[in-house]
């Protein structure tokens, strides 16, 4: 029973995570990645032995011998694996959130380019280097449910305030900028 529930949970987490990753919005992308990592964690949890009321760590050797004579204790390794996987996915989710945010401030859009965009542009198929002019984003209509992400709700945004320009956002004036 419990394994059936676990399988259902893992399956639905994978399905919804995959669905969210395939959407265009980046907040959904982050949520989808998080759901996928939860699904894998549950899968790892299910790969161990599912027992009830028999903890895996024994401080006393004799208690251990008694316990193991009757029935097997829980398996501690999946929990360690899950903890490690959680740590890693925590770090990576943090990085992706910061990346998406930075991308938003740089390109002013929450939208990941579709493959059809460059095909319609002349010349270089993979060139987004001059995407700073917002004109080319305009004809990419947002999905209907993504309007809340749109900056159109806040017309006429000011530039970044002076107090926010610290050394992490400043560039050297005369350094060569890679395309």
């Amino acid at each position, binding site marked *: 029973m419990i394994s059936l529930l676990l399988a259902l949970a893992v399956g639905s987490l994978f399905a919804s995570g995959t669905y969210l*990753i395939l959407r265009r919005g980046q907040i959904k*992308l982050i949520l989808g990645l998080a759901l996928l990592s939860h699904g894998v964690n549950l899968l790892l949890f299910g*790969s161990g032995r599912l027992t009830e009321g028999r903890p895996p760590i024994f401080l006393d050797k004799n208690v*251990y011998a008694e316990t193991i004579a009757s029935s097997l204790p829980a*398996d501690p390794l999946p929990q360690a694996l899950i903890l490690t996987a959680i740590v890693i996915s925590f770090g990576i989710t943090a990085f992706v959130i910061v990346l998406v945010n*930075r991308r938003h401030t740089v390109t002013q859009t929450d939208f990941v380019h579709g493959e059809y965009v460059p095909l319609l542009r002349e010349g270089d198929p993979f060139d987004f280097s001059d995407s700073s002019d917002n004109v080319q984003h305009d004809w990419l209509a947002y999905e209907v449910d993504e309007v809340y992400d749109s900056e159109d709700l806040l017309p006429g945004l000011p530039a970044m305030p002076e107090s926010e320009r610290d050394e992490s956002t400043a560039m050297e004036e005369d350094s*060569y900028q890679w395309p």
Partner: protein
Amino acid sequence: MAVSANLLAVPVAAPLLTAALILLFARWGGRRRIRHQIALTTLALCLNLAATAILFQATAGRGERFVLQLGDWSAPFGITFYGDGLSATLLLLTALVALAVYPFAVATIDYHRDRMGFHPLYLFLLMGVNGAFLSGDLFNLYVFFEVLLMASFVLLTIGAQPAQTNSGIRYVVLNLLASTIFLIAAGVAYGTLGTLNMAQIAQRLTMASPAVRTVFAGLLLVSFGSKAAIFPLFFWLPASYHTPPPAVTALFGGLLTKVGIYTLFRSFTLFFPELLVSWQPILLTISGATMLVGALGALAQPGIRRVLSFHIISHVGFMLMGLAVAQSGNRLAVGFGLGAAVIYLCHHMIIKTALIMAGGAVELHMGSDRLASIGGLVTRQPLLAFLFFMSAISLAGVPPFSGFVSKLSLLQITLDTRHWFVSGISLFASLLTMINMMRLWRESFWGDYNRPSRVPVRILQSRIRQQLMLTPVAVLVLLSLALGIWGGPAFQLSMKVAQQALDREAYIEAVSPSSPISTPGAEQPLVSLQAYFSDHPKAISGMTARPLLESR
């Protein structure tokens, strides 16, 4: 000279400790602190090179195998580092590539990225790659994968230009998906085999059901193949490799996909040697498609680095072809295919790094890498033109260089095993490579001098920086030449490495995972378990008791 197994810890520990020290003292030193960081990083890279050279000499030269059980915990319980000829070869090449790219990076990375922590990130990436080559445990491999991915994410997106963040999203998401699939594979392995130690997995897979083997192999092929950029899974690579600074691209092109290739080599030779025969059509089809798509895609690309990143994909196909014929050696020795793949790997890591660095130098001189708008650099930079030409014909496989030896040996084994079609494709892909390389050289160096960018490049006004940029390229080209001239001894060495990698029993024996409970299927009385745990008090836990449950 006796080599201690503790040497295996150096390629991981030295970069990590140095990066930690750099971070620790990053606040002090004023304007000189970048210089201190550069000095420390160079020291760590040299130490890494020395350690891996000793390791290579002991493993590939004398045929030894090293196993380091971290903290003296016996095999299935603790973390295992395993070093044999294959991993030592890759470690040595990694150290070489990292040390060669570093002067180029020092010369070309801008001050902004310097301050954002480029140097510790470089070391973290090196540590992750080295750890992935050394790891003898599936979950530990996952952790090192994540370490190198994390470092590569930051190296790719540091600076936050719009193009960088665009490509960064794709790179991050596709690589994370591959890691997730790998983690699923690890969960399947633990759920069905009850272990994550690679030697023990190899031991128990022989008794597992074919369904388990197929699922496990498929998951590993998809995840490792996605890291290695094989045919249907390569999209993250050309979408991202042209956006960071060329030094970062050179490092990525030299190292990252090779981790995927190494893990494919390791997992197929260790876990499923029989699948190398039964899955041979699949592997050959994938490799042919990878070669063809890479070469054809490169033909359509307009920029130097985009062409070169498509060629990485094409070359991954060559190595995969070597793996596919690894088990079938009828007239030639068994393992000839893997030996050819190993020498191809060496050739590719050396010359691809050199070529990307030379291309980066062109890009820096011209201010752009669009082939349509640049040209005529040969009059201003004759040495750069010469080095670019040498590495280009080496990549295409012209005789005195290493490309000829490696391609010839791969072709020999595929023709000998009568895979006419795939060997024809590989010849065609080589031809396309030649065309592409000539196109690159002609467009960027021949014709009238044409420099589209008006931005003055301050870096190039310093002579020492120019030397720092060109010297590593020259050294790598010389290495490739040496590998081509001494092709016979080099090939014998790589054959030794391949046969060492194909010897699964020796791997299992070297790691010798103590298995208190017998493998699933065999009956084992419960008493022996208690006897084992009274002998090994450290192992007090129900950790390995799982197969017992299945046997009851």
